[in-house]
């Protein structure tokens, strides 16, 4: 017959498949017409004979795959033809040719999926997968049998077979009646999918699951999780397939959207980043009617930590959209949370790209911008408590833009300066506002000296004004209404109240006095916060700056004496920052810092460590230990390394890494501790620490031969210690061989970086 000729043709290219399939169908019909059932059987036999030739091929061959493809094309063709015929004529034939054929073929393939030769299993599973959609209704027991065998194949030893079995099963997902048959063993198809999606050791099998699993409320969380799969292609697949095709990304919770986008946009692989960007800039935006504002509304920009990255990725990818953005007066007077966020991120984007022309097109003149800040600041002050966060957010965005403006124009400069100065005197500004204002002030001032003078003046105005107010208040305390309507302050009040409770103030008659104390403390907190932001932007030597010493004595040092943690921490931070400007002052205060290093609460400890590291890095170990002794410092650092607080441990590691890299510190014992910590199962969850060490240790050893010598001298005792640890925690540590190899790798002199 001609059947072999047709098969012969089909292996060459997929282009002729359709034509050949029709031809083969004709032959099939002829056989049936000429010799009835016998003819059909002969055709089927001949078909199978040819198919077997392909199945038996020992290697992975594109030609074989092509023939397999053809077979599925033929099945589709023969079934279609039959359906059309049935519509035309009345259904007179009791059993159609194609149905008999399909059943024959499926039974044949079913035999093939449990055989010894793995490629036969692969090809049989694949054929079933490719055909199952086109065959129409199968006889029930055949269907059940197919499904059952395929389920078994999902635990085939060959990952290839598992891939194809999954593929085939995916076509049977949601066909409903699976529950009755499979409950005894292995559960439903969906459960099988979830199992392989999460745990299959072969990345390609997990990928097949990512591509083929049906999306539902139950499966989505597990699909999302794959955005952190160890396999790069799998991570990318999550974005290219299921997440691009998701009907509406609001099916994901806000938290899931955040996580997914963060994973995608910060992935170390560019391909994953691109896939994620493409998904959001072409698919997801489309779901929001191609409207950026509407899109942002679905991201919860106020609480989001990725919305900014999302927008930046979007601007990068959709240069076409950038030109269509326009920000006119109407835009500026009608700002919303989303639109203010949009324009702020866009201005920063322009600045980063050095696109001054675009930037100038977006932002208003300085005077105008100051006017807008004023407008929204007023709205904020008059806002009801529930509207206040939104109003604050909008002002924050405007202040962030203000940092980027060009202050060459004197009128604009003055206008902005006046406004910001006034704003600093306002009650209860969020920290972010204070920071932006201080930063813009720095930009407006002539130089650092000017800047410091201005800020310190403002701070002293602030302190005086409240003192005056207090006196005022004492004089007429009877008249005043105690009930303070300024409810928006509650947040800070309660923060202070909380820490106050420990100090158990004598609860006497004077609620009013307590309130005033609170006022005065809030005011001090504000002054300290402003001071902190100012100092963070200062670098000049103090010299005789009486301003600064005044501040130190009247504000910073007294703060340390307060029982409230908020005050102590701020005082400590300011003191540390001032010390970093003045060596002698720093040396004098080392003792104080070391004493604080015994503090129990983690936040104080973190501040103290940060301060000590900065000071030692800035002025050197010798001058910083002149009064307290190097041993005491080292002992404290070691103690911090062993802290039970993961954050403290991480900061200690990071600080010591800095000291060692800059050669300020060189201590074999500390180095040993670091290496042990790196492998210690107790730090497994401490990402900050682990990632810092993995980066640091490599750089440290490969950048200097001396450091390698230091390691090689103590490598054996370290290894002994690691082996001991390994015996107690076999499952939570790398194998001894791996750890040994890592040590050797660090010691390898040929791996020098320079």
């Amino acid at each position, binding site marked *: 017959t001609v059947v072999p000729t047709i098969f012969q043709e089909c292996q060459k290219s997929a282009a002729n498949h359709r034509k050949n399939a029709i031809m083969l169908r004709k032959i099939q019909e002829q056989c049936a017409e000429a010799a009835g059932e016998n003819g059909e059987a002969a055709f089927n036999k001949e078909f199978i004979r040819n198919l077997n*030739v392909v199945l038996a091929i020992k290697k992975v061959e594109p030609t074989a795959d092509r023939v397999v493809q053809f077979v599925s094309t033929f099945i589709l063709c023969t079934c279609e033809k039959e359906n059309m015929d049935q519509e035309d004529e009345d259904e007179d034939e009791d059993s159609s040719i194609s149905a008999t054929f399909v059943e024959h073929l499926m039974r044949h393939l079913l035999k093939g999926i449990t055989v010894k030769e793995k490629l036969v299993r692969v090809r049989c599973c694949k054929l079933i997968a490719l055909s199952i959609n086109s065959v129409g209704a199968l006889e029930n027991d055949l269907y059940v049998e197919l499904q059952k065998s395929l389920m078994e194949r999902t635990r085939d030893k060959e990952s290839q077979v598992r891939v194809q079995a999954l593929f085939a099963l995916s076509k049977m997902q949601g066909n409903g009646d699976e529950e009755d048959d499979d409950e005894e063993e292995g559960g439903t198809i969906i459960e099988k999918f979830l199992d392989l999606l999460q745990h299959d050791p072969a990345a390609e099998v997990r990928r097949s699951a990512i591509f083929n699993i049906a999306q539902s409320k139950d499966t989505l969380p597990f699909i999302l999780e794959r955005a*952190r*799969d160890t396999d790069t292609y799998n991570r990318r697949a999550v974005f290219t397939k299921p997440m691009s095709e998701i009907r509406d990304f609001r099916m994901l919770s806000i938290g899931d959207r955040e996580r997914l986008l963060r994973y995608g946009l910060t992935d170390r692989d560019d391909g994953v980043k691109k896939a994620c960007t493409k998904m959001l800039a072409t698919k997801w935006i489309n779901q929001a009617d191609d409207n950026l504002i509407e899109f942002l509304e679905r991201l919860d920009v106020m609480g989001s930590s990725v919305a900014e990255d999302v927008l930046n990725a979007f601007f990068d990818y959709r240069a076409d959209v950038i030109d269509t953005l326009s920000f006119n007066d109407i835009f500026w007077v009608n700002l919303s949370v989303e639109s203010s966020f949009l324009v702020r991120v866009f201005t920063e984007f322009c600045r980063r790209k050095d696109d001054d022309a675009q930037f100038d097109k977006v932002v208003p003149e300085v005077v105008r911008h100051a006017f807008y800040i004023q407008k929204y600041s007023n709205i904020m002050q008059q806002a009801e408590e529930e509207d206040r966060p939104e109003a604050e957010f909008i002002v924050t965005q405007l202040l962030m833009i203000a940092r980027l403006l060009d202050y060459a124009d004197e009128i604009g400069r003055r206008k902005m300066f006046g406004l910001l100065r006034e704003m600093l005197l306002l009650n209860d500004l969020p920290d972010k506002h204070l920071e932006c204002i201080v930063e813009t002030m720095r930009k407006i001032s002539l130089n650092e000296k000017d800047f410091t003078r201005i800020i310190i003046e403002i701070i002293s105005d602030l302190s005086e004004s409240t003192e005056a107010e207090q006196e005022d208040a004492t004089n007429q305390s009877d008249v005043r209404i105690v009930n303070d309507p300024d409810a928006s302050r509650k947040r800070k009040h309660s923060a202070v109240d909380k820490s106050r409770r420990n100090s158990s103030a004598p609860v006497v008659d004077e609620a009013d006095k307590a309130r005033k104390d609170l006022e005065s403390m809030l005011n001090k907190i504000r002054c300290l916060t402003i001071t902190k932001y100012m100092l963070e932007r200062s670098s000049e030597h103090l010299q005789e700056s009486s301003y600064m010493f005044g501040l130190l004595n009247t504000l910073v040092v007294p703060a340390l004496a307060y029982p409230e943690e908020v005050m102590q921490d701020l005082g400590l931070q300011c003191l540390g920052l001032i010390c970093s400007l003045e060596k002698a002052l720093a040396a004098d205060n080392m003792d104080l810092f070391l004493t604080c290093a015994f503090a129990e609460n983690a936040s104080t400890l973190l501040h103290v460590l940060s301060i000590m590291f900065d000071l030692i890095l800035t002025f050197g170990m010798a001058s910083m230990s002149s009064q307290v002794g190097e041993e005491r410092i080292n002992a404290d650092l070691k103690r911090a390394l062993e802290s039970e607080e993961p954050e403290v441990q991480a*900061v200690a590691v990071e600080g010591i890494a800095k000291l060692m890299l800059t050669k300020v510190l060189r201590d074999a014992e500390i180095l040993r501790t670091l290496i042990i910590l790196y492998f210690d199962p107790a730090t497994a969850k401490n990402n900050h620490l682990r990632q810092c060490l993995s980066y640091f240790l490599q750089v440290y050893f490969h950048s200097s031969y001396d450091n390698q010598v230091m390691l090689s001298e103590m490598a054996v005792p370290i290894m002994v210690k690691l082996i001991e640890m390994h015996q107690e925690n076999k499952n939570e540590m790398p194998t001894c061989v791996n750890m040994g190899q890592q040590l050797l790798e660090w010691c390898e002199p040929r791996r020098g970086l320079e």
Partner: protein
Amino acid sequence: DEEAAPKKKGGKTPLVINFLEAEEVDEKELFAPADASALSISNTNLAESRKQSHLLPDDIHFSSKQLLRMFLKPAFIIKSKNKKPQPG
């Protein structure tokens, strides 16, 4: 009883399956059954692999920049040589 005679002419020539002269493939041999144990992953191995979830830890993107920054003043870069921080 080898079928089809895979004609391999050199490394890159694609295989041509000769259906016209192909001999009958012995179905018994083609479908020679395998031991159940050789075919599937054992339950113990399966249980073992279920412990693995093949996920990466959260990435905090630690980089050299972080080691060169001051703790309190992140805008300033450590300069080890002249020991005076410069705005960065």
